[in-house]
């Protein structure tokens, strides 16, 4: 039997967003087992980190969309992950992003997030999008605001015991 895994590549000025590769694991594990992962429910054990890593292919197979690995043109090294995300329990499809430490401070997450939002709107046909962000995650909140998002106070989210802000992205027409 065959499981369809068609994953496009998105290009921006400096970046290539591609499907996950097994070689991305160590960079991802380093992030997910570090304190940097505190705003996405971590730090995690390597075992739980691997479940999250391996799930990316299944996400593409099940939904036909999923997380992209962020790379810079000229290098295939993983700098983070970004993309549309809709696991069981989510109140609606999300645009998610994670940037590894070595890629911070150069506007890479902004560039990548803009590209996947355009992909979600233009290719997937989404009419709206949200991002769940931990209230203490100042860098991610600043990025959401730079992307034109607005907090929706009181909006539903699946994280019972966490202080999460639901950011609503601007409509497709104004992006």
């Amino acid at each position, binding site marked *: *039997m*065959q*499981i*369809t*895994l*068609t*994953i496009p590549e998105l290009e921006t000025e400096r970046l290539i967003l591609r*499907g*996950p590769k*097994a070689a991305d*694991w160590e960079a991802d*594990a380093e992030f997910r087992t570090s304190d940097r992962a505190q705003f996405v429910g971590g730090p995690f*054990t*390597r*075992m739980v*980190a*691997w*479940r*999250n*890593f*391996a*799930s*990316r*292919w*299944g*996400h593409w*197979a*099940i939904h036909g969309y999923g997380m992209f690995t962020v790379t810079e043109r000229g290098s295939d090294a993983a700098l983070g992950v970004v993309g549309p995300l809709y*696991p*069981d*329990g*989510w109140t609606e499809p999300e645009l998610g992003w994670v940037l590894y430490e070595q890629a911070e401070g150069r506007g890479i997450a902004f560039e990548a997030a803009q590209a996947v939002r355009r992909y979600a709107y233009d290719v997937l046909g989404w009419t709206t999008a949200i991002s769940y962000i931990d209230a203490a995650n100042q860098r991610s909140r600043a990025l959401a605001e730079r992307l034109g998002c607005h907090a929706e106070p009181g909006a539903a989210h*699946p994280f019972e015991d966490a202080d999460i802000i639901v950011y609503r992205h601007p409509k497709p027409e104004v992006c």
Partner: protein
Amino acid sequence: MGHLDIPVLETRRLVLRGPEPGDYPDFKATFASYRSRFMGGPLNPYETWMLYAAEIGHWEIRGFGMWMIHLKDSAETVGMAGGWQPAVWPEREIAWIIWPDKAGRGYALEATDAARRFFYTQRGWDGAVSYIDPKNLDSIRLAERLGAVKDTEARTIDGNDAVYRHPAPEALKNSQIADGIALEIGHYCDPLFKPKGWAID
């Protein structure tokens, strides 16, 4: 990329196919239940879904993985069985889980026997282990029916599990264990066979 090829295995009563999106509700019901307590559960919907998606990713990353066990007659699913080796697993594992209301009919034995034979004969595995919670008596019993023996020297996952080592391909070939497995599966296939007493997978 484009496609992920997962072989389909057939046994007397079962068809083993790769995990598909439509099979998720059955998986979710089991991982929400106490049945999953020896496989890291019960899990919330997010964790369950991520694990299910990871079952598919495992095939892509490792080139092997877990099959969904379907009944030939009705196509309904009764559990999962196959190979499993996420990060931190010291060795390749033969693993299984049977939905709680499908236990006691020999499905796990029939599926794991087929999966092990596939890995040994088609993928060149020279052995395998099963990591089992020492309190999971049903699974220990299945490991022993498969001819696996507790290996106290082997590295465990985290010290809380027992390692059962499966017979190597040469030791299994034409062995009493192999005959015993075939005989037992034969009994379960017999409509007149109505085992009483302890339900086993």
